[in-house]
């Protein structure tokens, strides 16, 4: 297909001609287009301005000076961090250190971050989700799990900074984290992918290894209770009514080897009944284990848990934006199971069997892992083994199921199959985990990039492909490279966050904020308080004695947005940065006598290089 370049904008010839209503124009004829016609695509922020002719042909170019339409929040896998990616440009805008040490910002180096990290320096972030109000993002927080050390972190979105990290007791392989969607996020659920003895007694037999569905108070960031089941609990979702949370399980066998985990021919979508959880707590119907209220949800012991059988070893569970269906992606089975949420109450009441909640089981492809939605009745499922994104229509799948096996065989639900590059894991469409799913873009988080980028050695980047889903067909428009190893993401409309994100800190939110530079000594404990004001720290030198325990507190007094200062202390292994009006501190032992220059590491001023001061450690 030939491309026409007009101005700075590349336009696909065929769509251009169609757009201009001159599809019959001779190939090769030059086409004059008024400036403002081409620019229409740039006005994606105004939904109204889009014509039908643009469906499936969205502009993904974000020109210099333009903004992206979406904030993408990416987990960072075993890098332990989160990232902010602009959509559709796929530009990495920021990294948010969470469970990892980040010497650029000083996360894991400053006293404040170390307190949150509590001695751990590795993490594996999988599922990142925003806090909700009435089925859509309220722009307050992000939540993300750490699979390695069983923790949950919260990120406040005004500063885009981690503000709480909590341990989840009795859990290993903490996975599948999802906030309450309705009426607002009061609870947050997270799963135990690895069953362990509860409490963790090394002598416990294998059949006493349990999975726990943990409920967290999302505002207080404290574990409220856990529901204990035999199954492992993989991915999680909450409904749109505030009634249920649910988890897939691939190891209902309580196996500890691969073959044991694959033994049974079915596993479950497990649904948790929230009102009954509240009732159990009210009635003290729990045991306290490691300080947590643990409710027994084992088979035959509880009416809180509904086990819906699905083909063995399923993976993701995702709720359609209309709140009607939970789609459980088959992984080992080539199907997705569509569960009608309205039937869950009947099944909990014993009026129908759990398996009767499944209203369709369409065949999707080999290795369906996760499903996302376009808000127009279609689901798009990532298919790992086939290396595809499969778009399928939920209503048609249900209809074919009703009609029987012959109708299903024709696969009337399949709308489009897109080859991706390569081996997709998670998949996510813009706003797809909210009732405001808008069907504009999708990102296929592919686990292998293989030959898609210039060779950077045996360790290749991930390949996250941007897909235009605004039309009938799926269209790849961009290969985005990422470093180790995002799992999941959400994409939030820019207007939902923009007014809430700040340019500078509230200085006095931090009680340590320095307004007056100076040195205070109490025996061997020395506190050095420094203002940072381009191009100077508040002191030019500090005298210390060998063996002093020194706390340096730095407050950035520059108000200009983006004027961040650093503080590095030579040969003392210290660096951190402070953004406008931010305060951070670090404590170290002055164990090496000599003259040590502290300097500003974050470019701040024409005299940035002169922004330094001496720490003189006397022997």
């Amino acid at each position, binding site marked *: 297909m030939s491309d026409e370049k007009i101005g700075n904008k590349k336009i696909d010839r065929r769509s251009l001609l169609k757009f201009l209503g001159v599809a019959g124009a001779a190939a090769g004829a030059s086409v004059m287009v008024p400036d403002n016609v081409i*620019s229409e695509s740039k006005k994606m922020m105004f939904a109204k301005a889009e014509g039908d002719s643009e469906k499936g042909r969205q502009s993904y170019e974000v020109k210099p*000076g333009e903004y992206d339409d979406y904030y993408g929040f990416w987990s960072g896998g075993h890098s332990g961090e989160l990232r902010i990616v602009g959509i559709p440009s796929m530009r990495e805008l920021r990294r948010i250190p969470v469970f990892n040490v980040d010497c650029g910002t000083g996360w894991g180096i400053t006293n404040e971050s170390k307190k949150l990290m509590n001695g751990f320096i590795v993490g594996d972030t999988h599922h990142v989700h925003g806090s909700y109000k009435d089925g859509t993002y309220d722009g307050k927080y992000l939540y993300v799990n750490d699979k390695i050390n069983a923790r949950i972190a919260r990120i406040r979105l005004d500063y885009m900074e981690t503000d709480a990290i909590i341990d989840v007791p009795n859990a290993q392989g903490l996975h599948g984290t999802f906030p309450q969607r309705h009426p607002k996020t009061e609870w947050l659920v997270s799963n135990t992918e690895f069953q362990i003895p509860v409490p963790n007694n090394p002598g416990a037999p294998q059949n006493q290894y349990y999975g726990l569905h943990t409920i967290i108070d999302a505002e207080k960031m404290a574990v409220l209770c856990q529901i204990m089941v035999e199954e492992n609990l993989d991915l999680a979702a909450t409904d749109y009514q505030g009634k249920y949370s649910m988890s897939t399980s691939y190891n209902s066998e309580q196996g500890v080897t691969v073959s044991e985990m694959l033994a049974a021919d079915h596993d479950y979508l497990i649904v948790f009944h929230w009102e009954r959880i509240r009732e159990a707590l009210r009635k003290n119907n729990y045991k306290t284990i490691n300080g947590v209220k643990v409710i027994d949800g084992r088979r035959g012991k509880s009416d809180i848990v509904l086990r819906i059988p699905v083909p063995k070893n399923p993976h993701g569970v995702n709720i359609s934006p209309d709140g009607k269906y939970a789609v459980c992606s088959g992984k080992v089975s080539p199907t997705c199971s569509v569960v009608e949420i309205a039937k869950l109450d009947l099944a909990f009441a014993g009026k129908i069997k759990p398996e009767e909640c499944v209203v369709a089981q369409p065949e999707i492809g080999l290795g369906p892992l996760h499903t996302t939605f376009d808000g127009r009745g279609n689901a798009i499922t990532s298919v790992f083994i086939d290396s595809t994104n499969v778009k399928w229509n939920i209503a048609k799948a249900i209809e074919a199921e009703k009609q029987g096996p012959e109708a299903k065989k024709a696969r009337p639900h399949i709308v489009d199959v897109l080859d991706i590059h390569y081996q997709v894991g998670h998949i996510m469409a813009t706003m797809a985990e909210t009732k405001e799913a808008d069907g504009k873009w999708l990102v296929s988080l592919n686990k292998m990039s293989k030959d898609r980028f210039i060779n950077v050695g045996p360790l290749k980047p991930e390949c996250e492909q941007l897909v235009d889903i605004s039309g009938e067909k799926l269209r790849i428009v961009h290969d985005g490279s990422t470093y180790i190893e995002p799992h999941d993401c959400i994409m939030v409309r820019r207007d939902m966050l923009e007014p809430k994100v700040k*340019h500078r800190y509230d200085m006095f939110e931090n009680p340590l904020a320095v307004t*007056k530079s100076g040195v205070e000594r109490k025996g061997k404990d020395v506190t050095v308080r420094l203002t940072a*004001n381009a191009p100077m720290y508040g*002191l030019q030198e500090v005298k210390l004695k060998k063996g002093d325990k020194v706390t340096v507190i730095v407050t950035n007094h520059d*108000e*200009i947005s983006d004027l961040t200062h650093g503080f590095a202390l030579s040969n003392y292994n210290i660096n951190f940065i402070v953004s406008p009006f931010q305060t951070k501190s670090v404590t170290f032992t002055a164990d090496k006598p000599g003259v040590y220059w502290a300097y500003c590491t974050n470019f701040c001023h*024409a*005299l940035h290089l002169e922004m330094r001061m001496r720490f003189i450690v006397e022997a």
Partner: protein
Amino acid sequence: MKRLILLSALLFAFYPLSAYSDQWKLFEHRYEYKPEDVLQATKFVQKKGYWEGFKDDKLAGYVFLSKEWTSKLVGYSGKHLETLIGMDTNGDITGVKIIFHSEPIVLIGLKEEYYLNFIKQYKDRNIKEPVSVGKEISMDAITGATVTAVVQNSIILESARKVAEAAGLLKAAQASGKKLSQKYAELTWEELKKSEAVKSIVVTTKELGLEDEGDYIDLYVANVTPPSIGRNILGDVFYKDIMSTIKEGESAVAIFSKGKGSFKGSGFARGGTFDRFNIEQGSKVYLFTDKDYRVLSGIKAEGAPAINEGGVFFIKDRDFVPVLPFKLTLLLPYRLSAAKKEFRSFRMEYGIPERFLE
């Protein structure tokens, strides 16, 4: 509007360490002054905020310190440029002297002498007339220090005009008694332009003496506070967001442009102050900073052109009267060749049309 860093001024009071203050002196230049430096007179009588100067017992003019009138206007350094100004009874400037500044141009780059030469241009300018950098006032002396130049210009003019009002030389602008209409009507781009809810300045490459064809910059301005202007330009979501940022009585002005010329420039990145445009109303000059601004990347109204640059700028000062006209001055730097940088200044008047008032 900006007008920041009172905080850093306050903090200075806390720094007791002499070593520290000594260091700061490197960045600060303070000079002695007497009223005779800027006005020929034999006797000076202290008034509120200014001196009256008498020659042979006849009123010769006024002398005043800028920080009494415009301390909120700060330079690249974040500090006010303290200026001593003399003005005769016609409103002609008789002399200007810098008495304190800490602008980095004296630290690196330009010589302070150049700055003092720049200041000399104000002598004999009449403050009842428009005086803009790049037009009446040449940038040649301090090319590159545009933030300093533009802030200095605003300080001199606004201080002098306020003194002129206080002394009865100028009449203060009177509000009309009208207010902004809250009614909404959907308007196309053509309708917005035709009604003069949006006004523009077009600067062609030809008039700048550049070789390329076409418009160098088409600059548009609109007071987007009334819903019929704001919602049509910004879109409902952004308009609502903007309105929740400002309070009753404050204003939001959208400025946006097409073409390769830039009205935002890059001066605001480090100094915080936009140095290529300002708004004047009566005696007041409004400069904008990165704190009073949101990026505008597209115009909603049907038929609107694609824009290259845009911003919504807030005027939070209570002395701005939204229903009265204001002047927008654009200071446009451009290069005739790689080595030759020029400045030109353009002005337009904007007032919210009657149909958006009630």
